[in-house]
């Protein structure tokens, strides 16, 4: 029960549990496509929720009722950036050597057009970090421009341009890859 604008521990924990239940798959999906393997994705997801738990009350207070998904994804984004800074690299393993990339997709999808999907995933991995992240948020998490803008700390307009340019660049990469494989 909220008293004088503050929340009880039980209320906070119930809200955190709801946040966790609602967005675990979002955070995990973001982490998986961001880092490229399940092992690091699990670590990143775990660290994201632990960090979120430590700062949850403040986030609730400052969100003023707005959804907290962009905040969660921003935590994951910052942690992923730190991970690659520490390791001085970004994910570079060829997708066709990463058998686990196929895991999220159905057998039907794998049979029909697996080459197309692999080309698109390879193309996504070649994009600059900000463009790649924007596409992950849009297509894996189905976030709208406003949510993506909040997660990336950009304006709505800049985010719209970012996504447009990312799709155009990816289109060029995929088209070139099709030309090479034809």
């Amino acid at each position, binding site marked *: 029960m909220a008293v004088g604008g503050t929340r009880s521990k039980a209320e*906070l924990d119930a809200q955190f549990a709801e946040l966790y239940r609602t967005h675990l*798959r979002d955070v995990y999906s973001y982490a998986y496509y961001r880092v490229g393997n399940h092992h690091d994705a699990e670590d990143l997801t775990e660290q994201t929720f*632990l960090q979120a738990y430590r700062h949850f009350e403040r986030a609730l207070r400052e969100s003023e009722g707005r959804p907290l998904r962009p905040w969660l994804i921003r935590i994951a984004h910052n942690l992923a950036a730190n991970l690659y800074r520490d390791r001085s690299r970004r994910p570079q393993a060829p997708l066709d050597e990463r058998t686990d990339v196929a895991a999220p997709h159905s057998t039907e999808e794998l049979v029909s057009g697996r080459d197309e999907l692999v080309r*698109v*995933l390879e193309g996504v991995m070649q994009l600059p970090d900000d463009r790649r992240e924007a596409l992950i948020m849009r297509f*894996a998490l189905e976030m709208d421009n406003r949510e993506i803008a909040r997660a990336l700390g950009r304006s709505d307009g800049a985010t719209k341009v970012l996504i447009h340019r990312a799709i155009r660049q990816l289109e060029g990469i995929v088209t070139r890859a*099709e030309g090479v494989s034809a």
Partner: protein
Amino acid sequence: MTGAGDVERLLRRALAPVEPPEDLVGRLRNGLQSISDAAAEELEGWERAAIRDPRRWVRPGIAVIAGGAAGVGLFVLGAMRRRSRD
């Protein structure tokens, strides 16, 4: 040749949401436990001195709050884990 519309269609399929592994909830529970343990250790180191000196009551107080919150969080996540197993 792949157009922008095609790329968006392919992106929706290529970037399908990924279900997290079942044991991730357990790992999170352990992580929250470590927050709770750290808070308890903090208390052990400060409680004797703090009880005698009111100027030092703030830090152990924070540890109590952190440990308590993590404890309830553990309970919540534990309950969720049990529910997901049922």
